[in-house]
């Protein structure tokens, strides 16, 4: 009997079938809407930012943008031509062209120069806070899942940690301000920023680490203990290495968050402008930790809302945003590479 004649397994239109179709299209549309939004947002930043970041001549990258500190932009007419120059260049120009001394130039703050100090500051903030967050977070996760007696107290602790994840980042900023900057008298410093950002990302790290530790089979622990290992020996040799890839995956999410948050660092670590780079002007080792830095997200905020907006500031905004995305992607890529290496080494 050929399938074209009517038979008992014949497919028939029905309400269930229509709903199935509708559901499929709903989910598909939702996914594509999200994809389009993502493309639009990233596309917008990449498109506008690349005007600042890339140049038409070799070496095709706007190197001064990456290597210089922000400075004011001067726009003026000279011999019928509209010229734009950064602060240093303008002063040198005035020195070499004495007749130009009287020229009135419009100045735009932070619209020239580069964002090198911001890049350095963000990288330092991310590295320091992730080291602190991973150390504290993994230790807490090991305690909660391996050592602590499961009961009311541990459930309450986990609940408290989850609640921490819902705290607004500005509240973290105020917490950091109150505890680290004022009470511990660290002032606006890398240390204060590190700890504030670390506490902000701690819930994610702890939860993901606990999940990774739980995923390691019980047989590894039992086998190790049955051979006469202590609990810590078992965890160190037979559990933690196999949980590391999962822990590092959580750190990738943490990195993106830590790099992008403005509110926690606004009061605790970031300066609007600083003329020294973090390794300049240090007299003692502790000077390095107790200095504030410039940071990319804060710079975007300053350039976007603290100063008058015009076409020149827009350039810097998008350029900074573009660079910021690239840096987060780079750090995340390093984390992924490290995770894959560990996954291959500790395969189970």
């Amino acid at each position, binding site marked *: 009997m050929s399938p074209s004649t009517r038979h008992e397994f014949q497919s028939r239109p029905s309400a269930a079938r229509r709903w199935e179709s509708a559901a499929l299209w709903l989910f598909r549309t939702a996914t594509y809407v999200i994809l389009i939004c993502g493309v639009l947002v990233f596309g917008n930043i990449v498109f506008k930012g690349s005007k600042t970041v890339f140049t038409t001549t070799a070496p095709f990258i706007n190197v001064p943008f990456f290597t210089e500190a922000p400075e004011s932009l001067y726009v003026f007419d000279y011999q019928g031509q509209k010229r734009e120059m950064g602060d240093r260049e303008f002063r040198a120009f005035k020195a070499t062209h004495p007749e130009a001394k009287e020229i009135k130039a419009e100045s735009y703050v932070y619209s020239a120069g580069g964002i090198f100090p911001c890049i350095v500051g963000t990288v330092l903030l991310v590295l320091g806070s992730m080291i602190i967050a991973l150390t504290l977070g993994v230790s807490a996760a090991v305690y909660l899942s391996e050592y602590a007696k499961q009961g009311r107290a541990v459930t309450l602790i986990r609940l408290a940690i989850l609640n921490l994840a819902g705290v607004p980042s500005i509240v973290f900023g105020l917490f950091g301000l109150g505890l680290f900057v004022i009470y511990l008298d660290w002032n606006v410093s890398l240390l204060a920023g590190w700890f504030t950002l670390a506490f902000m990302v701690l819930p994610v790290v702890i939860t993901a680490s606990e999940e990774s530790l739980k995923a390691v089979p019980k047989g590894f622990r*039992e086998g190790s203990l049955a051979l*006469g290992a202590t609990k810590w020996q078992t965890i160190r040799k037979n559990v933690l290495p196999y949980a590391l890839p999962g822990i590092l995956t959580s750190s990738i999410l943490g990195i993106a968050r830590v790099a992008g948050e403005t509110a926690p660092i606004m009061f605790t670590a970031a300066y609007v402008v600083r003329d020294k780079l973090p390794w300049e002007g240090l007299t003692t080792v502790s000077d390095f930790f107790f200095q504030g830095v410039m940071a990319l997200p804060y710079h975007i905020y300053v350039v976007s809302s603290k100063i008058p907006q015009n076409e020149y500031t827009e350039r810097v905004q998008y350029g900074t945003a573009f660079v910021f995305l690239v840096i987060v992607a780079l750090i995340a890529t390093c984390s992924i590479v490290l995770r894959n290496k560990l996954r291959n080494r500790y395969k189970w």
Partner: protein
Amino acid sequence: MDIKPSFTAPPSGRSIPVTPSPVGSTLIDIDHVDFFYGASQALHDINLKIEEKKVTAFIGPSGCGKSTLLRCLNRMNDLIDGTRVANGQIKIRGIDIYDPSVDVIELRKRVGMVFQKSNPFPKSIYENITYGLRLQGRSNKSDLDAVVEKSLRGAALWDEVKDRLHSSGLGLSGGQQQRLCIARAIAVEPEVILMDEPCSALDPIATVKVEELIQELRTKFTIVIVTHNMQQAARCSDKTAFFYMGKLIEFADTRAIFMNPANAQTEAYVSGRFG
């Protein structure tokens, strides 16, 4: 006889050597032991003497407490919250292993275990076997090499893996993995090897190999094996203990249990009328 406890951790980190008792004497004395999982009682008044350098089998239907008792012997039940041994003692060479002065780590070095589901570590075969030795601080390469060969030969696995000692233990077949776990257990030279249904996850050919291995090992180690498979107990063991609902029903020479059981329940179980 006043025996100095040999399960307390010696200051040097090395195990204190123990003079073995003559063959046929009691190594493990389980004396009026009750066992509780929280509020529910899993073992009732167990009295059992396990003899040295013999294979003792625990048989019985599911849930009768045989695995529970086995795990008491190396205190693996301590890992579960709320468990306790009450009203009796488990003595190994006269020392109560639940005494507070006993170091569980030292106990587990002397009483090894092979699990039902083989659990080779996801390391190389070599590292699996040297795991227990490194815990004891032994790191001399030639020493470790010698022990690895001895253990793998002892587990009848040497010929099959001698060319790939540094490949992953997970790449072996099920039967080989279980023999690797046995090799790992004997590498630390325990006195007792506890086997919790070691062949239940293995195919018949691998099962035969492991049973032959048990026969070879009994000359050097005291073996306690829990098994669901009565025929396996009949083949492998010298003495058999039949458990039912947390009670020890009968304990005698294997031949007696299977040919001529004294208890009606034992007879019903070994002849297959229930279980």
